[in-house]
């Protein structure tokens, strides 16, 4: 009895502290490190002020870009009137007012391809929102804290995006490769594609709105079994991301699209579209 009490006096504090530390670590883990990320953001904020890169506004000064923009507006207008003629209802057009955010941190472990943004729930970012950069799709918001958010990049090994080859409509799944390239697995054995074809998100995708640019086909391996595989060069500079734009996630409007091509067999693309949360 006495020895037990002495032992407890000696070790009790240590055990209590250990339990406290373990509990704290577990809580931080379950809250996805909200506290840590907030702290990180408040510490790095002065540095962000110091090293202001080229703001997105300045990029639009480029004359060639302005010319292209004019053309796009023109084409969009034309497209709109054609769609009106057809009675076509577009599924989830991207919102016109995206949230512009800056990348303030990279992934905390090389096994994940993530970035930390300096905008969060306070600015209206939610889990599952779509992140774009110059060049196209970058990733998906994985977790949000009041003033930061964490993005799972499409180059992550876990990422799967339903994509389509714009020229021919061949469809497949794009898997991340932890590099600036990704591998595209086609559904068909012999897809109608060639090197240099452009790849964008597909209409089946439920996580992403259709038609966001992703990359360009760099090489093809048609002999691979069970399906052909292509290497896709991603357009956005995944390794040197600086400014990105965040768009709200697409809402599922299945019921509201009466006159689209009669529901093609919904190849489980939506399911292939990757589980973001674990």
């Amino acid at each position, binding site marked *: 009895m006495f020895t037990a009490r002495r032992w407890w006096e000696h070790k009790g504090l240590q055990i209590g*502290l*250990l339990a406290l*530390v*373990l509990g704290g*670590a*577990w809580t*931080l*883990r*379950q*809250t*996805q*490190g909200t506290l*840590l*990320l907030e*702290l*990180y953001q408040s*510490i*790095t904020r002065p540095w962000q002020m110091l090293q202001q890169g080229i703001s997105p506004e300045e990029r639009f000064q480029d004359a060639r870009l302005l010319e292209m923009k004019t053309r796009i507006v023109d084409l969009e207008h034309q497209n709109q009137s054609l769609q009106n003629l057809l009675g076509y209802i577009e599924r989830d057009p991207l919102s016109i007012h995206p949230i512009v955010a800056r990348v*303030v*941190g*990279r*992934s*905390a*472990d*090389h*096994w*994940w391809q*993530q970035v*930390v943004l300096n905008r969060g729930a306070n600015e209206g970012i939610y889990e599952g929102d779509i992140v774009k950069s110059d060049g196209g799709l970058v990733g998906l918001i*994985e977790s949000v804290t009041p003033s930061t958010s964490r993005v799972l990049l499409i180059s992550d*090994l*876990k990422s799967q995006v339903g994509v389509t080859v714009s020229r021919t409509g061949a469809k497949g799944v794009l*898997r991340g*490769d*932890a590099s600036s390239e990704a*591998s595209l697995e086609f559904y068909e054995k012999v897809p109608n594609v060639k090197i240099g074809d452009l790849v964008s998100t597909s209409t089946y995708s439920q996580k992403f709105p259709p038609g966001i640019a992703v990359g360009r086909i760099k090489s093809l391996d048609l002999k691979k079994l069970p399906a052909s595989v292509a290497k896709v060069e991603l357009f956005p500079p995944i*390794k040197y991301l600086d400014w990105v734009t965040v768009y709200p996630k697409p809402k599922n409007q299945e019921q509201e699209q009466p006159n689209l091509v009669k529901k093609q067999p919904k190849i489980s693309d939506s399911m292939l579209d990757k*589980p973001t949360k*674990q």
Partner: protein
Amino acid sequence: MKNSGLAGKHHRKFLIRVRKSQSFIPSLKFWHPWLRQVLDWMITFWSVLLCLLMLPTRFPGMELLGIGPNWVLIWVVSWSVKRSPLSGALAGIILGLLQDAMTSLNPSHALSLGIVGLVTSLIQKQRFIQEDFISIALIVFGMNVLADSILALQFCWAGDRQVTAIWIFYQRVTLASAILSSLWAPVVYYPLNNWWQRMKLLAHP
């Protein structure tokens, strides 16, 4: 006077260390043991926090193929190299949970870092190798490879990634990350070890 007494009992290196830190010790020496203990905990806590907040940063020179040093692993090795296997493993598990908070919940880092803490404390470095810097770098190198292998196995087990992709990535990345971590290891190890040794001296003179 006191130094000569110590020199008889203990190792010579020990004496040098005491002499060197003499100007600092008196201030700490007369602190209440409790206060000293709290200070020790505070410094340990802040060092962990600093390591965690360094993880998402990529300062120039700290990056190789887009990979930064694994600060948390370096901390775990520094902690467990002169401690018991139990405290090594526990520190590894706690730091693993914290690293989960910075990345993603599954698979957990607690397993790999816990094993790293355990193995490091079982190496019994001080018995075989006296020299500090290079041996720490070597241990960090080995432990980084071990931790990466365990994580790769966990990824295979989890099954939401392609197994071939995991192993290709493993081959590409392990060496770079191990080299980088081992080169940066002394930055964490030296000040922490210095502090813990000093606290040990004060607690058991």
